[in-house]
């Protein structure tokens, strides 16, 4: 069965390592914070100028001066620091963030990503996404594998305007965990109960399948 939003977040969280600085995008990536494995410590970076983002506040501790990149009220974790936007993107562009998780509309076999603009529809802007994909080495894209109409979002060539070129190496969809290398998708894991054939059918770009593909495990 396809993974739920929470399960996608849970699988991404398995990639976290103790001492990681992590930037989580809006939507499913934000949920990753709920599944940080026991016994490890990560520091969440919010690109509006906060390193060490904590939980949402209680009614009593809401502070209009303390928000995250999604404009939600948040709190600060112990060890947090605050800085301006130029400093924030120095961290991002300079490659100091260990893991970036963000959503997308499409990715392709060359590691291109389209995530911010559908021509003809309302264009809201890229926010920090272009800086994040250009600056980070370790990026996981989370998305649904195909549209509701069964159109693959893992393509030979992205059709939408790009957010970044050749920068994506890992994609976690509701069906599969995929690595991108040498101009091909490589199937690493499949969602529990989802067959390799099903994944092949919904992957438009070239997909390499080597040996037995394990199911994802959830503790």
């Amino acid at each position, binding site marked *: 069965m396809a993974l739920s939003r929470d399960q996608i977040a849970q699988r991404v969280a398995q990639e976290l390592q103790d001492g990681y600085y992590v930037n989580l995008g809006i939507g499913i990536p934000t949920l990753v914070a709920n599944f940080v494995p026991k016994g490890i410590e990560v520091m969440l970076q919010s690109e509006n100028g906060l390193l060490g983002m904590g939980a949402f506040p209680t009614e009593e501790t809401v502070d209009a001066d303390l928000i995250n990149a999604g404009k939600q009220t948040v709190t600060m974790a112990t060890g947090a620091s605050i800085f301006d936007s130029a400093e924030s993107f120095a961290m991002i562009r300079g490659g100091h963030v260990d893991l970036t998780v963000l959503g997308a509309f499409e990715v392709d076999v060359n590691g291109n990503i389209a995530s911010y603009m559908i021509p003809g529809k309302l264009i809201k802007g890229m926010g920090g996404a*272009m800086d994040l994909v250009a600056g980070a080495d370790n990026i996981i894209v989370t998305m649904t594998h195909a549209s509701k109409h069964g159109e693959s979002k893992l393509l030979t060539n992205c059709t939408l305007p790009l957010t970044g*070129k050749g920068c994506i190496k890992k994609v976690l969809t509701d069906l599969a965990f995929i690595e991108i290398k040498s101009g091909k998708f490589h199937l690493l894991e499949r969602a529990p109960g989802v067959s390799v054939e099903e994944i092949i059918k919904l992957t438009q770009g070239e997909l390499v399948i080597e040996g037995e593909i394990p199911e994802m495990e959830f503790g």
Partner: protein
Amino acid sequence: MSGFDKVVHSYEEAMSGLTDNMTIIAGGFGLCGIPENLISEIKRKRKSGLTLVSNNCGVDDFGLGLLLPDRQIKKIIASYVGENAEFERQMMSGELEVELTPQGTLAEKMRAGGAGIPAFYTATGVGTPVAEGKDERQFNGREYILEESITGDFAIVKAWKADRYGNLVFRKTARNFNPMAATAGKITVVEVEEIVEPGQLDPDEIHTPGIYVNRLIQSSFEKRIEQRTIRASGE
């Protein structure tokens, strides 16, 4: 001996000299740390043809969104917009020119503008619509695009505390774009919650030195919250 006294006592005075077609750089992220009273003064002055440089454009009835109904903004340079219906309408009809700029590039454009650097290379936006028409160059085998810096006729800034010298301290994530905006205005106007006596701010803890600040005004703020997100107590 009032050469270093940046304090003004009215919003009229704070924004005097603003004329049509000027470029204004504004601090703030979403509605957090926006110079809300200075924006209201720009609305009151009814100046138009303005170019606004700001990460966002407020909401329908607050922040920079207030400048939309009277069509005061000709062009906005921002990273994320469209949280308001009137903005959407003006953008789709072509009445409002929108130059979408990646957030980090926008911050750096302001920083560089204030620091006397006319342009810089960045990998952000390579191979995307943002790169169109821009000079590309390789360094160490990687492609970069040339981005030009930004300065403004005015910069409008919100800080937490200041002294009359214009030394500024920001509070939490209300800092965001404000320190860069402060450096990039020919005239930098700052509104603050509190003006303290000279010597009360620890020089080691000043975020923006007063050299960047031309005018300073104390006021009160609504500080509207865009996404009030809370958890239950004890959760």
